């Protein structure tokens, strides 16, 4: 039997056993685990916890103080190491353990953390957080884990015992990123605690889990060189396993997260990500792409983490399901936007390129001190913005119709560049007429310099300041920074134009009341500014659509799951019959009149409707799609790129392997029918609603304070006015 112990081994010489790591760990002869690492704890009793550098027990509410003493259970016979195991139960939700004391010996080392658990109704979720400060400043701050610079999570190793113990491991990772940013805290929490913290689901009582045999072992020298870098050059500077994190090379495991280190479990996890899309995704576009997707995923499976993550994320994005989100493995709050850059017509620059342009600035932020509205981003790390964005694909996500990618990701370039330690080059033309090259001013923002204090333990005060980039240059109606339920309207009585501003089609009571107001007394011309259209509900779509349809007009959305064989007349009839007979399931298919049977109190079917688009997804795909095809007055869509093309509801996927959220995608796709005699079989997901007129904000208009899109929409309405 292994004696109970908790050791903090503080000398390098004590790590020499690592030359033969097979000697430690699970011992087949005894059926028990032997611990021998830089930090080991049998978690046998209160003494064992007290010998840890520092720790804090957690309740199931992570934000509340918790004062209960730990419980240890079991015996030498039924614990896997030592005499007992730490119990997480209906009261004790988890434990935070400080790792500060390991820095002197492990600061430049590569380590692996492991423990075992025995489920008795629940399982643990565990992570190690990389933070720039340590001590009680971390342990006593409930928000510290979420503000971490990076984290490494534990995965099953694929090893278990026949009496139910399961081994978890982080796999190898570098103990330090750079300077003060290093592994500071290890957290093990009951899975139910996570559900309580993030989903508000109270823990269902009557479950526990035993935690035992915790150890952190040294597995060699750090892999990422501790040198300065930028994102564009990280492949050459930081090695195969490194990425550039705020200007210094760091292990990609810290910056981007880990996958299971065990090849079998990793393959199982990644294969599951592919197979669930193959079997359940409703998008026919995904169905057509799935073999290519699987081949990409298979090719990336065993590649170094930077390459694997980049491929994984881009491959998912290119499935063009706007409701697809890959599983969440960690909840870390990243840098937000400190200035809003939108892809614009830089008509004051030589050659008038299409490029990201500053449209709004965050007051008080250091970036705002350097930039001005109208400045154009012309290079990052000395290369073209598009080329840089390709290298930064692990940081830039866009999962809608890929024709809109460069437009939608433009506001994310600045925070991504700062995270990547990159230097952004802006061109300024400070006059209302086009500048020559000589007349341009150049502004450079060194992302690494902005955040340099992070590595001395003094995170800049502006770190968590961010602004909402809504793809609008001006606000027709003043509104809160971010309000998905916002509906505002303003009239121009002289020109008989009403501008209605929405941020989505929420459909909740407050939103519906505001829409009712906005649709009362509508004049001949309507501008619908949905440039930040985050979706919502079918009810929301119906409320904004119905007033603009004729009395006998009601397009139909057939919202269909994957069908095998594919939709044909017989299946269509079967689904219709089922629904007509009151069937609730009908194969999870829905045939919906897009007005949902609602009648507009003040119909305006002949109104001339100008839709101004930006980022539009889901409900804000359905709405312009239907308005564009209405039979009454004209509709014209102004925007830079197609909408997302997410034609269907979102379905959240189940969690596996302790994911914090299992991700999401559509298990439906949609066929639109003009009426019940329509036999269309065209599925729409993946193909956004295209603008009738491609319009971007002009740089010259920006300097003059003119919103190019609203101006063009207004002009079109007036062109049709009698």
């Amino acid at each position, binding site marked *: 039997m292994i004696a109970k112990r908790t050791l903090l081994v503080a000398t390098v010489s004590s790590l020499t056993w690592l030359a033969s790591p097979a000697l430690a760990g699970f011992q087949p002869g005894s059926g028990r685990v032997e611990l021998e690492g830089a930090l080991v704890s049998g978690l046998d009793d209160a003494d064992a916890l007290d010998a840890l550098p520092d720790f804090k027990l957690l309740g199931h509410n992570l934000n509340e103080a918790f004062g209960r003493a730990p419980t240890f259970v079991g015996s030498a016979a039924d614990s896997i190491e030592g005499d007992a195991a730490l119990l997480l139960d209906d009261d004790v939700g988890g434990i935070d353990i400080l790792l500060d004391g390991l820095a002197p010996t492990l600061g430049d080392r590569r380590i692996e953390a492991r423990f075992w658990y025995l489920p008795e109704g629940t399982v643990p979720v565990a992570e190690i957080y990389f933070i720039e400060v340590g001590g009680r400043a971390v342990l006593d701050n409930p928000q510290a884990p979420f503000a971490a610079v990076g984290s490494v999570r534990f995965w099953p190793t694929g090893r278990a015992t026949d009496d139910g113990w399961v081994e978890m491991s982080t796999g190898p990772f570098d103990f330090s990123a750079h300077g003060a940013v290093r592994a500071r805290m290890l957290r093990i929490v009951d899975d139910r605690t996570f559900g309580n913290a993030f989903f508000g689901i109270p823990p269902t009582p009557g479950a526990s889990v035993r935690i035992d045999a915790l150890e952190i072992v040294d597995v060699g020298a750090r892999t990422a060189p501790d040198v300065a870098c930028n994102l564009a050059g990280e492949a050459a500077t930081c090695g195969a396993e490194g990425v550039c994190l705020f200007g210094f090379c760091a292990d990609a495991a810290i910056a981007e997260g880990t996958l299971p280190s065990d090849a079998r479990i990793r393959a199982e996890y990644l294969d599951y990500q592919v197979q669930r899309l193959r079997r359940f995704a409703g998008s026919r576009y995904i169905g057509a792409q799935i073999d290519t997707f699987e081949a990409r995923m298979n090719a990336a499976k065993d590649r170094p983490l930077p390459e694997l993550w980049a491929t994984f994320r881009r491959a998912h994005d290119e499935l063009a399901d706007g409701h697809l989100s890959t599983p969440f493995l960690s909840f870390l709050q990243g840098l937000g936007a400190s200035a809003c850059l939108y892809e614009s017509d830089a008509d004051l620059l030589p050659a008038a390129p299409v490029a990201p342009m500053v449209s709004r600035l965050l007051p008080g932020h250091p970036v705002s001190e350097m930039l001005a509205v109208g400045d154009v981003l012309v290079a990052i790390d000395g290369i073209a913005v598009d080329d840089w964005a390709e290298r930064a694909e692990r940081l830039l*996500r866009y999962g809608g119709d890929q024709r809109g990618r460069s437009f939608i990701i433009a506001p994310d370039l600045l925070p991504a560049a700062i995270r990547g330690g990159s230097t952004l080059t802006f061109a300024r033309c400070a006059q209302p007429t086009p500048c020559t090259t000589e007349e341009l001013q150049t502004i450079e923002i060194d992302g690494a310099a902005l955040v340099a204090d992070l590595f001395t333990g003094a995170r800049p005060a502006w770190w968590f300041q961010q602004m909402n980039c809504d793809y609008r240059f001006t606000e027709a109606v003043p509104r809160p920074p971010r309000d998905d339920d916002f509906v505002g309207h303003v009239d121009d009585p002289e020109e008989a134009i009403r501008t209605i501003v929405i941020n989505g089609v929420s459909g909740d009571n407050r939103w519906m009341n505001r829409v009712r107001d906005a649709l009362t007394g509508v004049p001949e011309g309507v501008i619908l500014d949905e440039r930040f259209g985050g979706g919502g*509900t079918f009810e929301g779509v119906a409320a904004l659509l119905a007033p603009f349809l004729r009395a006998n007009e009601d397009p139909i959305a057939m919202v269909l799951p994957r*069908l095998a064989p594919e939709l044909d007349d017989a299946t269509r009839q079967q689904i219709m019959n089922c629904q007509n007979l009151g069937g*609730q*399931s009908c194969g999870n298919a829905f045939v919906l009149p897009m007005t949902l049977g609602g009648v507009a109190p003040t119909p305006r079917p002949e109104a001339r409707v100008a839709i101004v688009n930006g980022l539009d*997804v889901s*409900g804000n795909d359905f709405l312009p799609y239907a308005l564009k095809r209405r039979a009454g007055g004209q509709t014209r869509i102004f925007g830079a790129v197609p909408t997302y093309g997410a034609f269907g509801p979102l379905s959240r996927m189940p*969690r596996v*392997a302790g994911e914090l959220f299992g991700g999401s995608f559509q298990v439906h796709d949609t066929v639109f029918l003009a009426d019940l005699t329509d036999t269309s079989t065209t599925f729409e997901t993946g193909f956004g609603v295209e603008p009738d007129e491609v319009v971007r904000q002009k740089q010259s208009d920006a300097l003059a304070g003119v919103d190019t899109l609203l101006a063009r929409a207004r002009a079109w309405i007036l062109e049709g006015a009698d």
Partner: protein
Amino acid sequence: MRRLSIVLIMMAAVACSSADTQGLDGDRDAGVAHDAGTPPRDGGEARDGGERDAGAPVDAGPARTLVEFSLLGDSPPDNLVMNPNLTSLSTVGPFTQVGSSATRHFAHTPTRQPALELAANDSAFVFVQAEPGMTTASVWMGVRDGDRVDGTALILGLAQSQLDAVLQLLPSGETVTMDGITWQRFEGSTMLQLIGANLLFIENSTRAPLFVTGPTVVARQAQIVGELGAPKIRLGAAQRLKAEALLAKHREALMQDMKPVSRRLLPRSP
């Protein structure tokens, strides 16, 4: 209810993986994906009425031996159940439940997967994708303390030939006791060609918790040699009410969910 005999020749190979068990001392072939019609091979566990509990002490040898752990237990790769681990935090979309049901993780279950604890008189469903071929479904249901398993497992769906197609899963005769829970396997097959996404509906008719694990539905190309034997029933009025209540909840949730997970609040994800 009449249950007819069938003789089927499976035309499709049973999907399986050749698990590399090198270095593992356990005799449990955990890496093999079991077909829906195949009971799990769980070395040392008593079956068919056996009473030995998995937690019983071992007489000799090491305290324990290593076995393989898999993220989805024995769920086959081509399982058509959208939520094979019955994860309760996914409350919209592929899984809907009522009451105080919860996912439970035990050291031992027949398929090495988590279990859903279905509270007294609760019901739940998971979506099951339809594929061409013979649909074969199975699930394990268990109770504590030797109570009688009194759960109902139904496949509810839409078929070309009828509305509200129903397949009731019946006891296969296999039972196993693990960690104080007596598990019983239920199974059924149908040649009805289902459409779209259908439901595996589980109902707990007792006042005690019912544990559910290992839902498996696979579709196989099959040549029917004998008479089709799909145990079909008509849905009872009470069951219909419960199923419709769950579906209405699901449908309402879907209607409210045309909004992607916020781009702006994205936590770190793969």
